[in-house]
């Protein structure tokens, strides 16, 4: 029979490092902590999450730290499931063979039909709303190469 091991009854606190040391010093300035969270977000997101979790306990009145912790550690809103949508094989084929004339433009495709091409997304969307309000459209930007 294989050996059995007791299951942990409590997960390690997110506010401690692996060695059990707090990430935030007692005299820490909340703005400096927030800057550190910001710096870590793109380099060490795991550490940013732990620091934000500790910071919100240390500085519960600090709105931006609460916001940072909310964004980093509370992404658990239930996902919504909605019906499937029509395939876009024809739009994909069109994109693979996009003409040079649409480079540098946003395009709106419905099947193999180019509905609108425009350098500005905002005006393309306005055009779609007025000219093709009920048409499904795949919208994408074709870069200049």
């Amino acid at each position, binding site marked *: 029979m294989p050996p059995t091991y007791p299951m942990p009854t409590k997960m390690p606190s997110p506010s401690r490092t692996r060695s059990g040391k707090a990430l935030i010093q007692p005299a820490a300035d909340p703005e400096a902590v927030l800057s550190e969270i910001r710096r870590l977000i793109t380099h060490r*997101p795991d550490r940013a999450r732990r620091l934000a979790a500790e910071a919100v306990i240390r500085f519960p009145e600090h709105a931006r730290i609460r*916001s940072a912790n909310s*964004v*980093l550690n509370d*992404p658990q809103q239930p996902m919504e499931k909605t*019906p499937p949508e029509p395939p876009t094989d024809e739009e994909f084929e069109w*994109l693979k063979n996009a003409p040079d004339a649409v480079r540098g433009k946003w395009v709106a495709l419905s099947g193999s039909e180019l509905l609108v091409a425009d350098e500005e*997304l905002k005006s393309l969307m306005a055009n779609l709303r007025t000219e093709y309000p009920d048409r499904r459209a*795949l919208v994408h930007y074709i870069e200049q*190469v």
Partner: protein
Amino acid sequence: MSRFDRLLLDSDEAFANGASTFLDAFPGVRDPQPRIYVKFRPEGVEPTIVFLALLDTGGHFCILNDLVANLVEDRLGERIDEVSLQTARGLVRGDLYRHRIVLIAEKGESLTVDSNVLVLKDWTAPCFIGYSGFLDRLSFAVDAPRNRFYFGTDF
């Protein structure tokens, strides 16, 4: 129906809620290397509109250019702060928000995910579906020969 549709989407043990065809190459980007482009829509955009985003399992966040983000500006979620990010196109700065993104399925169910989204100004590269706060909440699989992307959640 492919064998993978049966295994990943239609069986009793399947993990996926939805599946969609992805685009893996087209000349509409400056960097024409093979990539996986999946269909998505920021919540708040008309449900008839579909956008493409590059699936980036190495990416920190979902990235929207500010033009796409402006379409839902009044409904854009909580802003955390300005963030700098090193990308293949250099160092960029943008605003990090919380917003719901719809991952569009052709079969099964589309999923709306509450996500961290970086909004970048003057970003002409495609939008990105990134890992932290989006893909790390999903189970997903790629059937590359058939250009099929499967995704699902236990939540």
